[in-house]
């Protein structure tokens, strides 16, 4: 069936003569006859009898919105975010809403849980790089605490600034106007010399898989049940004997140090492949356990702020020394266990490492996932569904 003719839609210029109920009483002038683009009801197809599709209505609406309300989003305002939420908040709550925190930080009006967070300003970025690589070098850990930036971010900033310097020295083209525009659009954390404000929270405790379970664990009311005990319950380890518990309570910092400095010595529970470390309390699993030690010291010696600063610095130095030692030891061990063979006529160096052939290391069939030659004699599975065939890592 052909589409019905809607009276309003038909805008033939002869229509006033044909229909008795002519809406446009004005006489048809010569100029109106050929002009198809300026039809009286705004339609661009005055001779068509088909109703305009819905999409055209939306299109018209869109361009109207872009010209009026949306024009505010067209170009950015330096120093302020320019998100859609702002428009919505203004419509709902007026100017107060437009300047609310939500309007300035939420890019998506329907998702209150995602907010645009500050990025490092250029000065702060350069400051981080200067502190880590400058004349009096500081450790990543120390700089992270000083400026309130995550340790991984500090390391990344150093890498990126080094790369930037290299590119500048090679006279490679940089995207400077683009970078400036982005820093004008996105909230940034400025560098405050005197009152330092944290860029992000640096002591994030990752939620451990074992703690997702709700466990009903009855204990006597008289028992002093600490975080460490809760960790043992979560990992199904037997309760600590009284002597160890008393020693831990007497010097909690030492217990945390044992766990963080010698992670291989942490008590293990379970059998075979289910063997895991006992879940450690939060103060041992956060990125900066030394801050907890500092706070403990401060609580114990509240009258001596200088002493606590000294304590903090010596502890930090000690920790760095220990970490450096451990790294050196690991490298030496690796060096000792590999047998390097460099044939005279070859440009390669072959490195052999001894393998301990036991069920723990290579599995019951000798083809454990970490065993050398695990794929020997096994057909390739790369035609199977779900096998990853693209690279999974890029080694620097």
């Amino acid at each position, binding site marked *: 069936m052909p589409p019905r003719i809607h009276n309003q839609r038909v805008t033939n210029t002869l229509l006033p003569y044909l229909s008795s109920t002519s809406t446009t009483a004005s006489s048809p002038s010569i100029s109106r006859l050929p002009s198809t683009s300026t039809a009286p009801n705004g339609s661009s197809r005055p001779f068509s009898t088909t109703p305009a599709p819905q999409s055209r209505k939306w299109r018209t609406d869109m361009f109207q919105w872009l010209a009026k309300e949306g024009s505010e989003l067209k170009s950015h305002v330096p120093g302020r975010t320019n998100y*859609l939420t702002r428009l919505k908040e203004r419509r709902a709550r007026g100017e107060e809403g437009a300047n609310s925190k939500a309007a300035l930080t939420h890019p998506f009006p329907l998702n209150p849980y995602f907010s645009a967070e500050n990025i490092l300003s250029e000065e702060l970025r350069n400051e981080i790089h200067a502190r880590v690589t400058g004349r009096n070098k500081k450790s990543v850990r120390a700089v992270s605490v000083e400026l309130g930036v995550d340790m991984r971010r500090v390391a990344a900033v150093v890498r990126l600034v080094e790369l930037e310097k290299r*590119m500048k020295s090679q006279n490679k083209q940089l995207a400077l*106007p683009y970078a400036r525009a982005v820093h004008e659009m996105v909230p940034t954390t400025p560098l405050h010399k005197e009152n330092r404000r944290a860029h992000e929270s640096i002591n994030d405790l990752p939620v451990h898989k074992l703690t997702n379970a709700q466990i009903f664990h009855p204990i006597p009311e008289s028992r002093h049940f600490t975080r460490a005990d809760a960790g043992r319950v979560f990992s199904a380890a037997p309760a600590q004997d009284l002597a160890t518990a008393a020693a831990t309570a007497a010097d909690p910092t030492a217990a945390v140090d044992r766990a963080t400095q010698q992670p291989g010595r942490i008590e293990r529970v379970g059998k075979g492949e289910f063997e895991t470390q006992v879940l450690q309390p939060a103060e041992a699993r956060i990125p900066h356990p030394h801050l907890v030690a500092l706070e403990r010291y401060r609580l114990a010696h509240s009258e001596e702020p200088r002493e606590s600063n000294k304590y903090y610095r010596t502890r930090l130095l000690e920790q760095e020394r220990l970490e450096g030692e451990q790294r050196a030891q690991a490298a030496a061990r690796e060096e000792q266990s590999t047998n390097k063979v460099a044939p005279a006529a070859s440009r390669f160096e072959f490195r052999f490492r001894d393998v301990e052939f036991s069920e723990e290391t290579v599995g019951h069939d000798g083809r454990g996932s970490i065993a050398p030659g695990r794929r020997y004699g096994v057909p390739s599975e790369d035609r199977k569904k779900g096998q990853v065939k693209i690279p999974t890592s890029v080694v620097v």
Partner: protein
Amino acid sequence: MRNRATTTLTNPKIRQSWSKYNLFNLTRMRTPQTSFRTHFQQKFKAKSIARAYHGEQVRESQWQRMFSSRIRSVIPMDPYNLAKDDGAGAAAGRGSGLGNKISRAELSVQQAKQYIPFSQMTFAPLERRLDVAVFRALFASSTRQARQFVIHGAVTVNGQKMRYPGYLLNPGDLFQVDPERVMFATGAPKNKSERREGRALRKKKSEGEEATEAEAKEEDSAAAEESKEPAEAEAKDQPKEDPRKVLKGLMAQAKGIMSTGQDVLPAKRKQELRGFQKAVRRVLSRSASSTVLTDNLESQFAELTQLLKAKRAEKKKGDRKEGKEARSPKSEASDAQKQPGAPQGAAAADEAQPGEALTEAFRQAAENPEQEPDTSELSDEEFDVLKRAMVQMRDNPIDHSKPYGTPWQPRDFMSAFAFVPRYLEVNHSICAAVYLRHPVARPGASEVPSPFGEVVGTGAFAWYLRRR
């Protein structure tokens, strides 16, 4: 792969794109209806809406294999609380803590703050993909474009070319996109006349007259030298120029540059820009320190405003007295700044003279402020205009051989989508970023950028939990 990432207006879907169609669809989006719908219908709707945005370039079976019901989350810890309390208080009494005297209303407020939006993390595994990360770092205007950049070999991971958009970034991976491509992706497109100029340029090149190129190069370098040398010469010739007049002229030029839209002929814009460049050079060459021209923009700008005695206009309530007070310490400061510059050497000595002349002129102006009260006071807007004109002059030149409109400007509606999630650390000037860690949820916030609310997130999570 066929591009199904269309942003239609009928049957709208939200995409990972900065298109204006997408923006309009975003304004129209409502939370999907749940009343009078079966649970299955709710979940299906939620997953289909969410998948149009999250990884529409990924096959459904591929995504189902990536989906993980285990969601990463973190709790920010306060070292003071950890030190003060070993956690025994929480288990005391009958297991819910002793001395817990919080009222119900307070408790609910606290719980709302501590609420971790796990269901908003459903699509977190997709954020590991290289194409998505390139889009999230603001290096491309859509994930499709980011994907194209990867496939066309413009993206490196840890310094090696990576041609797989599905490469899953590992924490610590550094990826970098060709800056030229990024400028193209995020810049405003060329207009008609710029395209024509570009065509003319290409035609000229293809005619293969190397001699003309060499000539052009010579001309350019000559022009650059010319603009430096005569500027200095001029500065020496006419050292007693009124700073206000200079400033006025400069402002007019800057405004001209910033206000002329894309409709003005590019040749004329180029001329204007060159004129402004010359003027700024002329002013800066009076400065005592010779490093200003090569130094960073901020110091250049500070020097310029200081030389011209320009300052931000305060609110009009301040009367003349206040104005005097505000001016006099400034002139002292400028004197103080001049003094350490003076013993620098003979090179600085000859150029210090115009600077002193300027201060002298300024002092006179401060003593009898009736003559021209407000000429050197700039409003914030004017300051901004002057600054931006200088930026443009230095590192945003007109170049018709580029595939984007020059001088570079951000494309329309970019700011509505501009944010950088926390799991990336981005250096925009070299177009490189580091994938720090996997996105996590924390109390009150999720790190996965998603335009959808709880209803959609939860529904989609429930849909994929079934592992069909």
